[in-house]
């Protein structure tokens, strides 16, 4: 298991990864509350980006509605918690089951009826949008007024109900991001991963070489939506409030994937790097221009970043940086 994880990685890549993990693990001890909150959001985007990347970057299926799975995970666990007092550790099971089911429904429709490429992406957007509208009109889920999780004295840590200070959520999302990275590395170097990449590169040729397209695409959507559902649970308990329009909107889905697009679609470390570049820069810009009252400056900046990436580093920052650090050609825990 360990050997399979590290196999083919140059020692310097492992050393850098270990150093990076150590810095991230120690961050709460020296970072201010503000920096910590930015890191928390960055890691959230890294985690969801990793889940989304599994679908597009590995298996070649473009989803522009991943906010849907975040929303389903978030609303399921939050509703169970607020209405019935169900612990998020139990709620996460239901949340993942529902978001995976939704992913499989979309996948089934798309893959069974050969809806490909942008049309598949439109299907994912449609599902996200109409689920948002349904939640908007559902009183039990708080409707457009929002769903609020009861906040108890914020100082103490209640692990069972995930009530606690930001540092608790920092470590949770850090562990999730690390676990997703390891999972993706294992998957990518397995039969599953190789089949996904074959489908991504040429689906007809893959099929002729014995790859059952439908089954392997479905597995990709299922794993991706399940992971994203987990992120939703974390999101609900970190923010304590959920609004349909800000949860399911297409803008949200786009925001979730920008980091990965900048970091490098199809790479293992791209989602993490991209999120750690884009989110802090966006937050910094918002902070610097807070006196100027410029609406949407962050969105504008992100748009600028994507255009710059598409023009100058179309395969993302990570492949370029990995080359610079001489980590490329390692097919690795942080390479291609």
């Amino acid at each position, binding site marked *: 298991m360990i050997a399979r994880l590290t196999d083919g990685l140059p020692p310097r890549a492992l050393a850098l990864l270990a150093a990076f993990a150590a810095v991230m693990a120690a961050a709460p001890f020296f970072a201010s509350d503000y920096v910590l909150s930015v890191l928390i959001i960055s890691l959230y985007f890294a985690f969801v980006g990793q889940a989304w990347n599994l679908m597009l970057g590995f298996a070649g299926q473009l989803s522009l509605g991943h906010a849907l799975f975040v929303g389903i995970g978030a609303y399921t666990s939050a509703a169970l918690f607020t209405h019935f007092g169900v612990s998020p550790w139990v709620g996460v099971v239901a949340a993942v089951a529902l978001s995976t089911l939704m992913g499989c429904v979309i996948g089934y429709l798309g893959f069974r009826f050969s809806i490909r490429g942008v049309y598949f992406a439109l299907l994912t957007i449609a599902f996200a949008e109409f689920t948002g509208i349904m939640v908007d009109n559902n009183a039990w889920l708080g409707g457009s007024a929002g769903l609020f999780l009861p906040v108890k004295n914020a100082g103490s840590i209640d692990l069972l109900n995930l009530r606690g200070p930001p540092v608790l959520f920092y470590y949770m999302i850090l562990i999730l991001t690390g676990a997703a990275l390891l999972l993706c590395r294992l998957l990518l170097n397995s039969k599953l991963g190789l089949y996904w*990449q*074959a489908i991504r590169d*040429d689906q007809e040729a893959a*099929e*002729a*070489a*014995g*790859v059952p397209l439908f089954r392997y695409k479905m597995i990709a959507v299922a794993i991706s939506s399940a992971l994203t559902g987990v992120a939703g649970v974390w999101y609900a308990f970190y923010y304590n409030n959920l609004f349909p329009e800000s949860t399911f909107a297409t803008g949200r889905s786009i925001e979730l994937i920008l980091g990965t697009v900048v970091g490098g679609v199809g790479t293992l470390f791209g989602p993490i790097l991209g999120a750690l570049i884009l989110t802090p820069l966006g937050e910094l810009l918002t902070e610097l221009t807070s006196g100027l009252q410029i609406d949407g400056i962050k969105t504008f900046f992100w748009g600028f970043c994507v255009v710059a990436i598409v023009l100058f580093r179309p395969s993302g920052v990570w492949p370029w940086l990995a080359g610079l650090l001489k980590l490329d050609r390692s097919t690795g825990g942080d390479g291609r």
Partner: protein
Amino acid sequence: MIAGAPRSASLKVEGLTRRFSGLTAVDYVSFEVPPGAIHALIGPNGAGKTTTFNMIAGALKPTSGDVSLDGHSLVGMRPDEICRAGVGRTFQVVRPFNAITVIDNVAVGALSWTSDMAAARRYALDMLELLGLADKRNALPGSITLPDRKCLEVARALATKPKLLLLDEVMAGLRPTETDRMVATFRRLNKETGVTIVLIEHVMRAVMALSHHVVVLNYGKVIAQGTPEQVTRNPDVLACYLGAEELS
């Protein structure tokens, strides 16, 4: 070096027809390939050769007619099922997986009969050695030459351990020496494993050297079949395809 047990299958194509809105691309084509034989499918451009291949491999549904492998009909099966039933194919225009290495391209084929990645890569390496590509195993397909990519296409199809190998113009664009090497490889493969081969080919040098039997298509119909010698003397074939010039 050619791994695996002997494998062979008979192919029977009966009344195979495919119409594309008014145009009959393949018109009641029938032929039979006994196990272990090498057959060539020749004919001018647009004669329906690749369409016939696509129907055998399941990429295209026949309008009517039947294809059977060892007596079992393949019609209605998905391409990946037909692959696992023992039909390996190459594409006329090479279709490598561009973002993965040469050896992993071939390993994808081997994963149709094993789930063990190490075993798949080992077998892939055997296939690469067979086709003289082993030294390029860690390259990306985009960085190797077109003849090498043609070999890669063949290696991937071979890695699926086919009983029937469909080769769609794998020798087009190769230099005569490369053609001869490829011909020698297929001959050896056929002799050692017994694999049945059907090839579409315009390179008559390869057709004459390899095939036991030739089927000639024109406008979707079989206009002649027989041994290479018989076919090349057939006046209809000379008129529509080969021309009157001397064959090399």
